[in-house]
């Protein structure tokens, strides 16, 4: 599957199927700091991502105080 990451913007190829929470653990990303989006829809931690999916891992932390 294609995985789009931001800040900086980059793309990874990852083999599926894989659960969302497993993917995030492998990428060492804290679930608190991102949303996982597939085709414009949010996907929860227990969802399985397929080999043909295009996934965005969107950071949610902003820096303004």
């Amino acid at each position, binding site marked *: 599957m294609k995985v789009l990451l931001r800040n900086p913007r980059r793309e990874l190829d990852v083999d599926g199927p894989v659960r969302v929470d497993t993917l995030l653990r492998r990428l060492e990303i804290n679930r608190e*700091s991102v949303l996982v*989006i597939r085709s414009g829809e*949010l996907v929860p931690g*227990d969802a399985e991502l397929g080999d043909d999916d295009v996934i965005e891992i969107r950071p949610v932390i902003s*820096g*303004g105080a």
Partner: protein
Amino acid sequence: MKCRTCRGPAIIDLKAHNANFCAEHFLAFCREQVARAIKKHRMLGPDERVLVAVSGGKDSLAVWDILLELGYQADGFVIGLGIGEYSETSTGYARAFASERGLTLHETSLRDDHGFDVPTAAEVTRRVPCSACGLSKRHLFDKAAIDGGYDAVATGHNLDDEAAVLFGNTLRWNTEYLGRQRPVLPARDGFPRKIKPLVRLGEREMAAYCVIRGIDYIVEECPMAAGNKHLRYKEALNAIEAESPGSKHAFYHEFLSKAADRFADDAAGAIADGTSELGTCTRCGSPSSNEVCAFCLLVERTADAVPVTLGERRGARR
């Protein structure tokens, strides 16, 4: 994973609340959390007019949307900060949000209306960009609210923002700021009331709210904020939250209920010291303890500066 409310398929899990929600009931949850914050902290009366400080980011657009959904009269105000393409893009999201919904969005531009921008101000003052940015926002939002006859200014500060600020203030035992860190600052001496309706919702919830509502917002980080202390505090708190869900909520809200009052004297003392001779700025008419307010001084200091292009750090002056 099932929705706590309807038992249908969930699209988001909120470990801090030990709950999962479908899209419909997640939106209802967000509105309920904002309504609870407004009621508990007496932020707004039902017929009051509120000016939303909008940036084009997820939090400010979400708070504007939720206030409207809850039936409040809410207009927006956006400032062109002059942070290159980032500012143009974020202002564009604010304009699109307002025009698609037929809302009133007031605008001002630091460069066009006040003769400077944030990168140039940072260069001239030799301070971090967030300093001039925050000063300009506070001044212009306050002035717009007073001039427009609004009852309050609403900002998109969320639970993560407040927990990170509390973390920083606690690390240094900055008791004056601890005493002032409330979800509502009452109107006083020519300053408008300021409210933070998102203090019960975290950043992940606000981003999810925007995705579900189809609200486009700027996802990219402000290039001038990258690596700042506030971001590092948020990362530290999220590392704790991952191990102990609910920690951020407890840290901030238990502070409000159990500790904030203990610092009230420190905050009141600082306000009394700073405003014992509060008058008005001779240039803009805003409340100020000096003849010229800090914003007008910044305008003056930057008047002759060569505009800084992002990526450059120069000290050149015309």
